[in-house]
């Protein structure tokens, strides 16, 4: 087994799946000759040719719209939006069409596409290049939203996403792209969508975090016994795993790098209030970005949840 970065793991997943399934094609800006601005698709044009690794015009709505047509036709397109901050022009295609094609055509047409987008803050990129607006996508029945939190989960989740019969948005935390290496099996494996992973079992407090925030929780030093949950798929969410954990620990801290209001943390907290309030010993706390526009890199450390803020939240719920 090789120790790979997330970029290498995703590249390997794409390469192996394209070799296995001729229906898989890539399209996006600079994905071919340049191998993607993060080199995620490096070498794939050479290996699979321009018919399957399509350098498109600069056209976010066109890319996702074309992927919808390709998917309905019977291909398995993997479209790249170069950065999540540019996905907004394609939200219309996702909301209006990808999410509802199966419903609107009563199953006559389906939309088995993947939209990959680098996501999240902390890489000193220009404005609009560090967004985490996953909650916009989670509000959309008919789309699955997946966020890997390391090289191993990136490969297994991406293979599952490409094989999934429904449209999947696959958000790749840019901060993790090259930050850590993990053992990644060379062979084929999938991690099922809609199933959370208990990263570490614990007794005192449940912490839920995804993407690059998971790494931050793992780095947080605390004397308390933390049960750490990585949902992996944000929609459909694995409520059973989360609720079982909260019922056991009686405490919940949610960590996400998106802003607080209307974030996915709100949905998680509301669900716990509906389903497990009698087992709670403490208020549910959210550690999130403040409700402001994502700042430029000089202020990013004040914006993102830090290990200090995470530790404080854990200490706070442990006071009850």
């Amino acid at each position, binding site marked *: 087994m090789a120790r790979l970065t997330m970029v290498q793991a995703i590249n390997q997943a794409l390469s192996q799946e394209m070799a296995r399934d001729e229906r898989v*094609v890539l*399209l996006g800006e600079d994905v071919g000759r340049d191998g993607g601005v993060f080199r995620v698709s490096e070498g794939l044009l050479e290996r699979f040719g321009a*018919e*399957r690794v*399509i350098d*498109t*015009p600069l*056209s976010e*709505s*066109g890319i*996702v*719209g*074309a*992927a*919808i*047509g*390709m*998917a*309905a*036709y*019977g*291909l398995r*397109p993997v479209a790249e939006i170069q950065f999540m901050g540019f996905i907004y*022009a394609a939200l*219309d*295609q996702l909301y*209006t*069409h990808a999410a509802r*094609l*199966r*419903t*609107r*055509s*009563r*199953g*006559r*047409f*389906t939309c088995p596409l993947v939209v990959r987008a680098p996501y999240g803050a902390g890489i000193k990129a220009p404005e609009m290049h560090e967004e985490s607006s996953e909650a916009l996508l989670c509000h959309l*029945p*008919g789309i*699955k939203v997946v966020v890997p939190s390391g090289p191993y989960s990136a490969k297994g989740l991406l293979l599952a996403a490409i094989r*999934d*019969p*429904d449209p999947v948005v696959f958000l790749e935390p840019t901060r993790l792209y090259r930050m850590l290496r993990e053992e990644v099996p060379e062979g084929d494996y999938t991690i099922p969508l*809609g199933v959370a992973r208990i990263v570490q079992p614990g007794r005192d407090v449940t912490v839920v975090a995804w993407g690059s925030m998971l790494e931050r929780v793992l780095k947080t030093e605390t004397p308390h016994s933390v049960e750490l949950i990585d949902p992996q798929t944000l*929609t*459909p*969410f*694995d*409520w*059973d795993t989360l609720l079982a954990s909260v019922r056991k620990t009686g405490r919940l801290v949610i960590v996400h790098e998106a802003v607080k209001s209307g974030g996915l943390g709100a949905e998680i907290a509301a669900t716990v209030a509906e389903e497990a309030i009698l087992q709670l010993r403490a208020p549910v706390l959210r550690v999130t970005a403040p409700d402001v526009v994502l700042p430029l890199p000089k202020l990013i450390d004040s914006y993102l949840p830090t290990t200090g803020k995470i530790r404080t939240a854990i200490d706070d719920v442990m006071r009850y």
Partner: protein
Amino acid sequence: MPDEICATFSVHRLSILAPDGTVDEALMPPLSEGDVRRLYELMVLARTFDQRAVALQREGRLGTYPPSLGQEAAQVGSAFALQPDDWLFPSFREMGVQLTVGYPIHQILQYWAGDERGQQAPPSLNIFPICISVGTHIPHAVGAALAARYRHDPLAVAVWFGDGATSKGDFHEGFNMAGVFRLPLVFICQNNQWAISVPLSGQTAAATLAQKALAYGFEGVQVDGNDVFAVYRATRDALLKARSGGGPTFIECLTYRVADHTTSDDAGRYRSADEVAAWSALDPLLRLERYMERCGFWNEAYASETRQKALADIDAAIVTMEAVGAPDPDDMFVHALSLPGQRQAGQRKGV
């Protein structure tokens, strides 16, 4: 440093069938008497369907409905040129296209009556659900054309939209990609002069819509959209070109939305009766009747027989549609995802 002309363009307009029923024989496409009869019968079907649908809406048996009166030639003529394997991406006013390719009439009605099951195309037809969000389906046609080429399927893709749609970003993005990739695609604009209350001049400052294709590197032609032979010929030529690797074509059909935008609209608020009357004089069906009469295969008896047949088909479809009954509430969940998520599964039990 010379200042020189580096590119020049021109836009052609094709018309074959004049309002008096005479045709330009040199331009006439090869159509047998049987083909012409079929075109006529389909146009009568489209018009009769439209009249019945508006009446059903008034009786409360359909929801809001967008009439296609006056656009029969532009719809039937273009759809008539298709092959059975072609992929179709209609907009919401293309009942004439649906009827021409044999989309079940009761399902068209079922959809406008508010039942999603009307959108399930029969397996034999590669026709997408109609697009409600104006112009957003244009990139889907691009994707289907990319996929068809990748699969080496010898077919073409056709997409219909209105003049209003040409102002949308997706029109630009779709056209641009189609040009860059030289796709087997035919873009068909129903330029019916209005987008609800906005006239064409409020939509664009360009002299034609057809010329927009030139900026994307492919051919754009204007046709008299009330001339079924011109529409058919332009579409047939474009499809042949698409199938033989010649790339996309944009066909702008000049026609007119004679009725209100929808059954909820009152076009009298924003346009003059004179304008409507002037266009009504160019009626596509009347023109075809005059041609057929000149050729000796149209008379009142045939016309009334054709109308009766159309009415009988539509009335039978209304009976079928109304016999189907309302969908089960569970139906909302059936196609939400391939498999329901945990929460959907719980909600489904509760409906």
